[in-house]
């Protein structure tokens, strides 16, 4: 059984094939990274999974349910969650209020304050809970959004460049945080550029190129693959 599966997923913008016949499957409990040069279709692939865009053809299955045409909020309620690249938080609201909004839907109101305290502790944001979210540092905003995303207790967490703009220390700490979540049973799928980070967390890696699955394997297999080096790592070095 797969937790997420796409079959021949196609999306065109105008004449441009942004994703072409993407067949992709994710095993439960996996930490999977999606890499590829700019314009490889990674973001579009994410948006298709989330329902921000609808595919021209193909299917998306989540826990064996067809969610190809489901609205985004319905997918979230089935156990999907996302952390965006640019922190998607409620800037004018307090840090605590941000988490309240994320959690109130499925946590018993009597348990809510405790649950939020625990999450604030986990994120290292307990001291900042009364601040406006817009006043946090960039790294803290990223963590807050991760907190909102995991607060939904998702089966599958999608992360779009979760460490963008973080210092190396913050990046490492984020990686360890994600590993802890994975150990608790959450499946993770991340788009990432930072190869050190990919090496830190990924069980398996998929390379997208021109909207197609180009290669798949462990990070060692991928880095050893000369074709990948040519299209992707070559670009990074250059």
């Amino acid at each position: 059984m797969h937790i997420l599966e796409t079959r021949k997923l196609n999306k065109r913008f105008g004449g441009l094939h942004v994703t072409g016949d993407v067949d992709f499957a994710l095993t439960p409990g996996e930490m999977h990274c999606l890499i590829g040069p700019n314009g490889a279709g990674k973001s579009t692939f994410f948006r298709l999974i989330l329902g921000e865009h609808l595919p021209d053809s193909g299917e998306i299955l989540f826990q064996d349910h067809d969610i190809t045409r489901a609205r985004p909020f319905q997918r979230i309620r089935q156990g999907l969650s996302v952390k965006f690249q640019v922190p998607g938080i409620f800037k004018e609201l307090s840090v605590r209020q941000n988490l309240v909004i994320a959690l109130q839907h499925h946590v018993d109101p009597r348990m809510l304050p405790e649950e939020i305290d625990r999450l604030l502790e986990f994120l290292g944001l307990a001291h900042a809970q009364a601040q406006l979210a817009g006043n946090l540092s960039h790294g803290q905003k990223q963590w807050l959004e991760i907190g909102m995303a995991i607060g939904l207790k998702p089966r599958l967490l999608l992360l779009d460049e979760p460490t963008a703009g973080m210092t190396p220390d913050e990046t490492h700490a984020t990686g360890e945080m994600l590993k802890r979540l994975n150990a608790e049973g959450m499946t993770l799928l991340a788009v990432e550029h930072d190869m050190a980070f990919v090496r830190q967390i990924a069980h398996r890696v998929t390379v997208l190129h021109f909207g197609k699955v180009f290669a798949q394997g462990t990070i060692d297999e991928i880095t050893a693959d000369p074709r990948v080096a040519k299209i992707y790592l070559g670009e990074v070095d250059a």
Partner: protein
Amino acid sequence: MEQTSRIRRILALIEGPQTLGRGPRFWSGFALVLLLACAYPAFADSYDVGNNVYFFNWLFMALGLSLIWGYGGALSFGQTAFFGIAAYCYGVLTINLGDAYGLTLFSLLAAVGCSALCAAVLGYFLFYGRINGVFLGIVSLSVTLVLERFMAQTAGPEWTIGSARLNGFNGMGNMPSLTIPWPGGPIVLYPDLPLYYVTLALLIAVYLGLRMLVNSRFGNVLVAIRENPLRAEMLGYDIRRYQLMAFVIGSALAGLSGVLYTSWGNYITPASMGMTAAALPIVWVAVGGRSDLTTTLVGALAVLIVFQLLTIHASQYALVVMGALLVITVLVAPRGIVMALVEATLRLSRRKEAR
């Protein structure tokens, strides 16, 4: 036991992150204002008291607009449409049904319900069509302008519903006032003391009710949608449904204003839905500070009183001043003038405490 803790939890929503005004200081101020409002008729002519109910009549529409625009972030320029729909409904119903047996109260509910229903239908098309803020504003404004023109051409005798003549441009009159059936003879709510207290009580109830609503889970989501709709949707909320609900509640309140106004003056005209009429609620709410119920209430009341004084002493300039007030607010204090004053005071007092 379970019951009381639940009630306590609901009451606790009166204070919360989505409303300014917390703690003993605010509530003692609130009690003082309330006391003054209750005592006011003792110091004034009952004719004036009845007249001044006029100001209260509009505040329901202002609070509703604060909910839709300030909290929900949806630009609704056509609240006067729902004001007018309820006003005309009330007129037609009461002229036909009369004022016995509490039928005026039934008419009130039916008229407000009619506004809510119209808002639900219109809102369904708008919010489920996912149009952006700008278009929502101009479509809702178009609705009220077309309604105005429709009502303005109903002068002929063929525009009669039962025994109620719509009477076109000149407006419909002579509908009975709200009447409460009472053992010792019905209480007719003419512009006089009873009406003053009933309207005041209604206003307090709506204000406190809305405070609870915006601090509830519903209010949290509504504010989240204003701040970042995509994130709100990606937390599993059907944002269209929340926006629609806020729109319906706010429009029902506009309808309530319409009924109260019509019952108060026994008169309603199509001009109440025109371009100028539609602009005024925007001024009240923007000047006060639309993103908070209390600043909206204070601001709307202040603007209404200023407008009324201008109308008496320099009638022609009243609208010019309103327009200028709107432009200046947007330029100088985009979050509202009352809001800016509150924020400045808070900052000052915090600085004092720090010292």
